[in-house]
């Protein structure tokens, strides 16, 4: 179980990714570069589209800065901004930069083992521990039995309604690890209708290459 949540965690990560947001029939594509160090410092730089190119977000410890290219200014942001949808996507900044250990907050039970669509999978049901600071009623997770790769993760509220679903695909090896390089978060509206979708695709991802701490400084945000 821990393996699943630790899929993307490492001493350091460098990645190039593309995010595609589909909302109300419109699509947006954002391509960015990502550095992280020690699970606490994170730097994101947006490469495209034009309007947003050059925007950078830096998180060091508990502080967050935004670099705005058009204004050529660095602005400090309150951490509470981390919980609202980032760039209009279905991921919050929190989702992108913070990985919680699922076992800390949930009790895991196996709810299904067998074949689905010709693939041998295990399904786990995660129930939040009584004091865990999570909003979900339960989370279900399907994992491939062969390589323990996650297939999907479903988030339910306390009334049992499905609120969002995270699906994994495009499994590739990077720096010796097998990871899903495509993650899609689909949020459900009222009456279970699919509403918005965001897909993050890792074009390139490198783990554990040494990164200098210098790049994680607000002064260095300006290109």
């Amino acid at each position, binding site marked *: 179980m821990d393996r699943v949540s630790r899929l993307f965690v490492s001493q350091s990560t460098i990645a190039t990714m593309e995010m595609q947001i589909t909302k109300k029939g419109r699509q947006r594509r954002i391509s960015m570069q990502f550095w992280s160090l020690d699970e606490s410092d994170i730097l994101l730089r947006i490469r495209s589209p034009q309007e947003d190119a050059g925007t950078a977000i830096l998180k060091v410890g508990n*502080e967050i800065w935004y670099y705005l290219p058009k204004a050529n200014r660095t602005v400090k942001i309150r*951490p*509470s901004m981390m919980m*609202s949808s980032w760039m209009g996507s279905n991921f919050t900044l929190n989702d992108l930069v913070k990985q919680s250990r699922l076992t800390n907050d949930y009790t895991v039970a196996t709810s299904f083992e067998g074949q689905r669509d010709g693939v041998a999978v295990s399904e786990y049901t995660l129930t*939040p521990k009584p004091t865990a*600071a999570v*909003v979900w009623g339960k989370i279900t997770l399907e994992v491939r039995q062969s390589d323990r790769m996650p297939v999907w993760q479903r988030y339910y509220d*306390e009334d049992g309604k499905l609120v969002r679903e995270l699906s994994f695909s495009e499994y590739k090896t990077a720096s010796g690890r097998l990871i899903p390089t495509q993650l899609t978060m689909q949020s459900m509206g009222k009456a279970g209708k699919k509403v918005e979708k965001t897909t993050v695709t890792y074009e390139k991802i490198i783990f554990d290459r040494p990164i200098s701490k210098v790049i994680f400084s607000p002064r260095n945000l300006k290109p």
Partner: protein
Amino acid sequence: MGILLLVKIGWRNLWRNPRGTLLTALALGLGLTLLLVSLGLLDGSQQQMVANAVRFGTGDVVIQAQGYQDRASLELLLPAGAVSKSQEYLHTEVLKHVVQGMSPRLLASGLLSSAANASGVNLMGVIPREERTVSLIPQRIVEGKYLNDNQQSGVVIGAELASKLAVKVGSKVVLMTQEVSPPRTEAPDAGGGEMQSTLLRVSGIFRTGVQAIDAHVIQLPLPEAQALLGVPGRVTQVAVLLEREEDSLRVAQGLRKQFMGVPVEILPWRESMPGVAQLFLLDEAFNYVMNGVVLAMVGLGILNTILMRVLERRYEFGLCSALGLRPVQLAVMIIGESLALTTISLVLGLVLGLSAQHYFATAGLDLRWFFKSSLPTALVFDPIIYSRLSLTRIVSSVGIVFLTATVISFYPAYKAARTALPGALKVF
């Protein structure tokens, strides 16, 4: 003839026409009644307005860290021990009947999330039984229940917030805040402590009618808030509610003496909530105008009644003169009559007025009677006005009516004394 005899005659004159006299007395007395009732209601509604505003805010007197009024910074907490010190002082025998309640609170801001949504909130860590004596939020619960003292964890949120987050009583919400760290002078907006998240279940939902409160304010148990913010035993302010807001200044001064040398600011509500203070002044001015109008109306009523009563008796006075009564004596008799009448009326008026006032003081005047509005709004203030009448007001009202009636009766007395005899004796 001696004055006493004149007065006696005056008194008996009254009773020659008991029905007329009583009717006049009633008319006069009703004037006083109306005055008392309207004054009571106007005063009462004004005090209620202040009380309401004060109870939605920081109370009649507030104790907070120095500089908080200006900067409202989260790090400005009361020094440790401030709460117990104020408790000691406020619970003394002397102040037992002056203080209605005091509530220590920890204030901070954070983010409240549900499965469906998230929103910035202003949180208040409170002690339920103390908060009940000060704030109106515990009385405006529309779903679920307010926090109770045995609860270690729980939260009450406003109706608008509940709807935005799509939660109901019992739902899970997560509160995320930043630990408070003491302000550092070199980098005043640097860092802050660790981010803390905690799970809470909605105990109750309130509706105050004030949008800013219903959409952003949440209350949770004080110890829980203190743990979340990393400041065990500390609070931001102590809000004090008094039985009468007139004592605010006095209590504030008393508290200041207790806290000499300690960096706190102790403010009566007019200083901590200047907006409300100004509204109060405006309302006061408005009341003056209203009082003036009611007084004028009552005065006119008195004028009408007395003049009518006296001016009609020219025939009778003519007769008196013809029988040998000197003008001065006639005047005295008339005035004596008026005085007697006025006294009866005042007694009547007082009895009626005070009982009506008592009724409105206990049962209140329910404005909803008059509300034909179909607006689906929650009233910000209590629709029931309770009358509050001070002794000063009663005395001054009685005095005014008495004076007015007496002064008015001088005119006919004067006229009667100068009336030509022959004309007055003409019949029909």
